[in-house]
């Protein structure tokens, strides 16, 4: 079974993140790049599927040169090879353009399952998985808390507000995972050494068959008009509990008409 796992590099949430005043896009130089957390869960799930059903795990990343670090990290977790979609023309692509570009890149690969995170920590649009399924015309098995593959059939538990839906489809399919699905492994020293030798194929627009008129900031389907620091919250009241803390909150809530 061939599995492609989509891995995105994002700015580390622990560092300060900024937008660039010049074009209102994310300033990727301003912060350290790390693998989007949910993508680590996607890699883990891909590795577990491989361990159960055999086959190969290919990492697919779209991003600038810097994203190579995240690709190596994914390979050191145990993925077999990687494809790096990297082209200046992709800069500033929005979520749907990203889904389109990833869909085109996927068409150049052989796969039974695409596994991805359900959301990234920077954009948080939560649409890439659904949009990708739409572009590829494949079953959308997103928000999976559990994945079972049996021959050509796949079944997931799709997380909902009330619990989960059991969803069935035939492979190939697009799967996105949520945090509860597994516990990502740490790369072992041996795997880290091996990862350095694993093949990373570069892909540009032409190689992926991406229409340049459909990607990049100039063709974005949404535009950020402006941005500003959020107004700071007015300093609140902090009291030490001297035995009446609960009553003091009740007083505050009553003032605010919550009770």
């Amino acid at each position: 079974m061939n599995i492609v796992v989509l891995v995105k590099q994002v700015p580390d949430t622990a560092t300060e993140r900024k937008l660039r005043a010049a074009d209102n896009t994310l300033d990727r130089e301003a912060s350290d790049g790390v693998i989007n957390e949910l993508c680590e869960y996607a890699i883990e799930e891909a590795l577990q599927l491989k361990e159960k059903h055999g086959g190969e795990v290919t990492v697919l990343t779209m991003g600038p040169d810097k994203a190579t670090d995240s690709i190596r990290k994914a390979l050191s977790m145990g993925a077999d090879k990687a494809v790096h979609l990297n082209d200046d023309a992709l800069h500033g692509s929005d979520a749907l353009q990203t889904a389109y570009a990833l869909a085109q890149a996927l068409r150049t690969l052989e796969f039974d399952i695409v596994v991805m995170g359900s959301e990234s920590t920077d954009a948080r649009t939560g649409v890439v998985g659904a949009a990708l399924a739409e572009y590829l015309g494949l079953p959308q098995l997103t928000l999976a808390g559990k994945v079972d593959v049996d021959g050509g059939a796949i079944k997931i538990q799709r997380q909902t507000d009330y619990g989960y839906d059991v969803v069935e489809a035939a492979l190939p399919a697009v799967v996105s995972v949520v945090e509860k699905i597994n516990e990502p492994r740490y790369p072992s020293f041996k795997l880290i050494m091996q990862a350095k030798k694993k093949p990373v194929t570069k892909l540009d627009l032409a190689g992926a068959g991406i229409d340049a008129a459909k990607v990049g900031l100039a063709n974005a389907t949404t535009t950020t008009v402006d941005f500003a620091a959020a107004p700071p919250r007015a300093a609140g009241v902090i009291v030490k509990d001297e035995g009446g803390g609960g009553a003091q909150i009740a007083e505050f809530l009553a003032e605010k008409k919550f009770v």
Partner: protein
Amino acid sequence: MAEVLVLVDHVDGDVKKVTAELLTAARRIGEPAAVWVGDGAAAGKERLAEYGAAKVYVAPAEFDDYVVAPKAELLASLAQEKGAAAILVSASTEGKEIAGRTAVKLGSGVLTDVVGIDGELVAEHSVFGGSTLTHAKVAAGVPVIAVRPNSVSAEPAEGAAAEEAVSVQISDDAKAAKVVERVAQAKGDRPELAEAAIVVSGGRGVGSEDFSVVEALADSLGAAVGASRAAVDSGWYPNQFQVGQTGKTVSPNLYIALGISGAIQHRAGMQTSKTIVAVNKDPEAPLLEISDFAVVGDLHKVAPQLTEEIAKRR
């Protein structure tokens, strides 16, 4: 006036508050037309009329039997047929997915997780853990916008809510991912987390899987219960109640945090709450910096007292 399609969020005919909010926002843009999927429209229509829905398009329950794709087909074909000015959906996890697929079908742009929207379709986002506000517009096609619950205050206005059945058929492609079972995991009869006007969350400070101190306070306020990731990871509270960057984003009128330090990843999910109250032993906890009212003390003493005080005032 062009129609603005609003996808109705309802549970068995019970219309959610976010739908009233979306109808209110839609009225500033054009003529609100509600899109109903499933049973219960006859009963739910009244609520839609109260918030100004001129029309209600009703699609059969079958549209709900498959993951997302049929609803996107429905919205895209209605938008084309009616020349809609915009499509608004709730920014629930599924709402965002519906928005994404609909936009792909229409060749439109999509904005999700919007915290404000005006009559010119300028949408506001709160990004980077609430530290930055951005404004964005859709630059291509019919704008598809997913709005976070509690972002717009719902204002009543009379609408005809004229019912119209839709003739859209679900394509075979859209039937590729079939829902074969729905499993409800116990959550009591508290309001839904993302929608709730008040949320009471517990963190590592709760100290054990006995979350009753949090639940009792929540129930005294008619609030939803949330949890930090530390509490969820410890197995004290189910996953779907996690608030934060990798959990739910909430924007209630009141957020009470019990024993939560306020890591940036937690704040990302609650920072747009209108009023924030915290109880924490540690006067240095970062959450206190964004709280409107905070008590430095033991939550196991402060919260029960608060619950009791509220009961007295009811």
